[in-house]
């Protein structure tokens, strides 16, 4: 399934990744499914809640911080999902940055990925946004499949 995003939205994600560096940024991409392809219509940046969320269900190792983890607070998910529905859109993608690391899914990304959502990963090298890739979990959850990104 093709995944279409406008240049201005790509730039918004780039800016977010640069702003939060050396921490990870994260957010949702809102849009619609049209003619068998998903179209991004809006970027919804979120504050990385890895250290602030009241309820972090993931394994937290001593070395973990917002520099290598991003977490969406469920309250933010609820709020953004509600706003998207009111505008006739859906949460279709989750994006996050990998500071000083390739734009490739990590084992953590795969293990905790949910179905359907397209995972957009932005590499940020020394504060400068670099490669951006998109992935979707395979049906059996064993691997990420690359998703062609079309910049409109």
């Amino acid at each position: 399934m093709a995944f279409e995003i406008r240049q201005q939205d790509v730039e918004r994600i780039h800016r977010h990744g640069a702003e939060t560096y050396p921490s990870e940024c994260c957010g949702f991409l809102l849009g619609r499914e049209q003619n068998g392809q998903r179209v991004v219509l809006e970027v919804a940046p979120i504050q990385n809640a890895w250290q602030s969320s009241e309820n972090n269900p993931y394994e937290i190792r001593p070395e973990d911080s917002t520099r290598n983890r991003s977490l969406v607070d469920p309250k933010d998910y609820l709020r953004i999902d509600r706003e998207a529905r009111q505008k006739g859109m859906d949460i279709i993608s989750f994006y996050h940055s990998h500071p000083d690391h390739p734009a490739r899914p990590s084992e953590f990304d795969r293990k905790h990925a949910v179905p359907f959502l397209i995972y957009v990963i932005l590499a940020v090298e020394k504060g400068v946004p670099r490669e951006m890739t998109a992935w979707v979990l395979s049906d059996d959850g064993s691997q990420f499949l690359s998703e062609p990104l079309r910049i409109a």
Partner: protein
Amino acid sequence: MGVKVIIPTPLRQYTEKSDSVVVEGRTVEEVLGNLLSQYGDLRKHLYNDDGKLRSFVNIYRNDEDIRYLDREKTALKENDVVSIVPSIAGGRDQDGLVAVDFLGRRAQ
């Protein structure tokens, strides 16, 4: 009494693409039970093998996480909305990258 349950996009493939479902029930437990009797494929995404709600699944009654209410015994009344909210996280790992199909294309 019908309660609206909001289905997040990752789980709609198990609800015949419905973005919300109205089911009967006076507690969260009853509502989820009735939801699962309609859409059995949802079960493994909400509950673990011990029959407990998964830690990565958040259930809200209106704006409140049921963990801070009466958990699955949380009472529901007419016009309450139950939302299923998945936990979403990501991050880099230094200890190697995951298996992918290696056809990843550059965005630019």
